[in-house]
């Protein structure tokens, strides 16, 4: 299984690269955003960070760069695409996922380890978790206050697209405590928390490991071959 990590100016791409190397020991390539051909990869991780300095709206400028054509194509082909934090914002801005991000309701940047509940394990990213499982995953963002209109929310629920929710405390004011959603087909996931910062105990939590191992298993079970 070959992974690509698109790199925009300002991305924290190495954290995602290291997570794949350390957890899955699979080949992973950081790809500069000028590239638009991602056909040789099986999965794409759009990393966190502050692409283009988060200027205008976080993710807005990155969403308009050439590499997003490749991401779009991969998504259409059913390949796995995950956007983490800034990556989630980029997926929203590019229309691959519904909704938009607003500033955190307290207006501050918030870095912490959040507690999430897994709402759905029927998708390629969460197969190794239990529904209702509580996991601790770091967050670090200023705009994670997810918004969508009533109708979109109803659809998200109907199609089981809400994957993670914050429990105990909603750290940013997001609608219904949404922390991560996927597309209807289930192969594109966006989440504000950082699973790549939760892969060994000394990080404070290793609850992010199962997200990556779920992806690998899904790929292997669905005809993926080395």
């Amino acid at each position, binding site marked *: 299984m070959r992974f690509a990590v698109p790199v925009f100016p300002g991305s924290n791409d190495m954290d995602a690269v290291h997570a794949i190397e350390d957890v899955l020991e699979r080949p992973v390539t950081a790809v500069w955003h000028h590239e638009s051909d991602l056909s040789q990869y099986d999965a794409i991780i759009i990393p966190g960070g502050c692409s283009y300095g988060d200027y*205008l*709206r976080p993710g*807005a*400028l990155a969403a*308009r760069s050439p590499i997003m054509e490749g991401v779009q194509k991969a998504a259409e082909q059913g390949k796995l695409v995950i956007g983490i934090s800034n990556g989630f914002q980029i997926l*929203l*801005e590019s229309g691959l996922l*519904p*909704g*938009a991000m*607003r*500033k*955190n*309701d*307290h*207006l501050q940047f918030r870095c912490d380890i959040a507690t999430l509940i897994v709402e759905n394990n029927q998708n390629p990213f969460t197969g190794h978790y239990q529904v209702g499982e509580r996991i601790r995953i770091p967050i670090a963002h200023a705009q994670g*206050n997810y*918004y*969508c*209109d009533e109708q979109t929310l109803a659809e998200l629920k109907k199609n089981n697209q809400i994957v993670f929710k914050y429990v105990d405390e909603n750290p940013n*004011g997001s609608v219904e405590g949404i922390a991560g959603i996927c597309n209807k087909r289930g192969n594109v996931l966006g989440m504000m928390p950082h699973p790549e910062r939760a892969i060994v105990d000394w990080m404070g939590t290793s609850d992010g490991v199962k997200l990556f191992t779920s992806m690998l298993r899904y790929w292997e079970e669905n005809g993926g071959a080395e």
Partner: protein
Amino acid sequence: MFKAIIYVTLKESVLDPQGVAVQGSLHTLGFANVKEVRIGKRLEVLVEGESKQQAEEQVKVMCEKLLANPVIENYTYEVEEVA
């Protein structure tokens, strides 16, 4: 040369967390009569071009493609010729 002033505002239906916070601060400062605050952007864009009409068309496309997010924002603009 043309100067476009573009206003990007949050849609009415979208709660503006920043506006709410600023309203709260205004209240603590003693402005109890402030009923609502909404915060948007004002962009000033200088474009070179032949005609005002052409500039206006371009600005519209810029707004649609990048400057506003149609999921939560509206935009308006004015274009004027400058020296």
